[in-house]
């Protein structure tokens, strides 16, 4: 196992400002109603600082970045 960064959204808090998608278009896009869709899988390491910035910029603190255990091919 190794750790990986994952983005999650508190769907009740999120009110679709869409700021996160502007700051992190590599991972977040908006649906037809302006709510974020996060790309599947962990946040690529190179994007971690940008992801951090998106989390800090969410006006309602709905976005979170957490370390999660990630099964590697060997431990599957």
């Amino acid at each position: 196992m190794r750790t990986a960064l994952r983005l999650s959204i508190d769907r009740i808090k999120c009110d679709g400002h869409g700021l996160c998608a502007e700051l992190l278009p590599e991972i977040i896009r908006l649906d037809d109603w302006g709510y974020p869709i996060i790309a599947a899988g962990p946040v690529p390491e190179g994007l971690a600082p940008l992801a951090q910035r998106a989390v800090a910029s969410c006006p309602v603190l709905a976005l979170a970045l957490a370390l999660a255990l990630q099964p590697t091919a060997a431990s599957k």
Partner: protein
Amino acid sequence: MTGLRLLAGPDLASGAESDANHSRRLGAPKLSGRALIEALASSGLTGRGGGSFPVGTKWRAVAAASKGSPVVVVNGAEGEPQSHKDRVLMSTRPHLVLDGAFLAAHTLRAREVIVYIGEEHRAARAAMDRALAERTESERRIARMVGAPQRYVAGESRAAVHLIEAGVATPTTAPPRSHERGVAGAPTLVQNVETLAHVALIARYGDAWFRSAGRRGAAGTLLITVAGGVKRPGVLEVEAGTTIEEAVAMADGPSGPASAVLIGGYFGAWVAAAKAWELPLDAAALKTEGFNLGCGVVGVLPAGRCGVCDTARIMRYLAEESSAQCGPCFFGLRALSDACSRIAERGANRDEIARLKRWVVEVPGRGACRHPDGAVMFLRSALATFADEFAAHPAHWRQQPA
């Protein structure tokens, strides 16, 4: 009518079985504590509220999370419009449900048992009130009744906890899950009333006995509601693994030719009748086929009824039942429902169908609870089963009564 196990005993038409009769007929439960948890785990019993989660695993999790004083919530909300099995059980065998609830409380050393019953299920509530009054003083002291508002999501486990805590039956964000932190911050076991009734019998007769019923490799019995185009709609107790064709035959057969069957209720799936007849009513077996047992609804669609219009009607209901807290659920289900209504009212439209197909991929997994996931799974099954009807639908919805 009587049933195999849960509904065995006095005629159901005579109403709730008294405590005296219940105790005379079944004796006292023998297993509790660790031994009961182990028996539940090896019985294979899974939850009957819709999620089909293994019961032994859940009790172990609550036992591990609570270093004393968890809470037990008895889920009798039965918000699914087509389902009647939970209220039939509560109205006729209330002591089986209470036995299961107090066995859970004793085993987990719970400080409180909350019996959560749909406000519109008046006969069930009255029977459960009377039954609780017949229990021992030490049981009554830790139990209380709470009414569940008549909303589809009120029966979701965190919505139940939220109502008990704050008087609002809307789901809350997970984690924490109810079994980690629920009522008053305590680990909370939320269990469907039918599930608890099975617990009451496993505590008397053991896990091998539970597995001794069941067909085609499935274990135990289950309550189902047969609805729609059958001669005698209603609640039945069947062996797990009974096919849909056999269950429909037990409801005196189809009232005419059928085109499709809705398996599992509004969170379930439409299946073309020819395929549906052979499917076994068993959580694990249905899962391998990509379906859900859900709360055990078998809804037969008569050949003369339009599947597209029924789908539009149910999608409208599910969209209106969103608790409107999460954008993708509130706006997404409304958009899906509007598109279905337009096809039903104005006729087929390729752009609408293409949009529906994109949305059913984008919406699920993006709500605080699984309400949008269930609604979308239902719609996907409709788009597959009624593909030809969606593609060629005439503008006729208004002619078809609900």
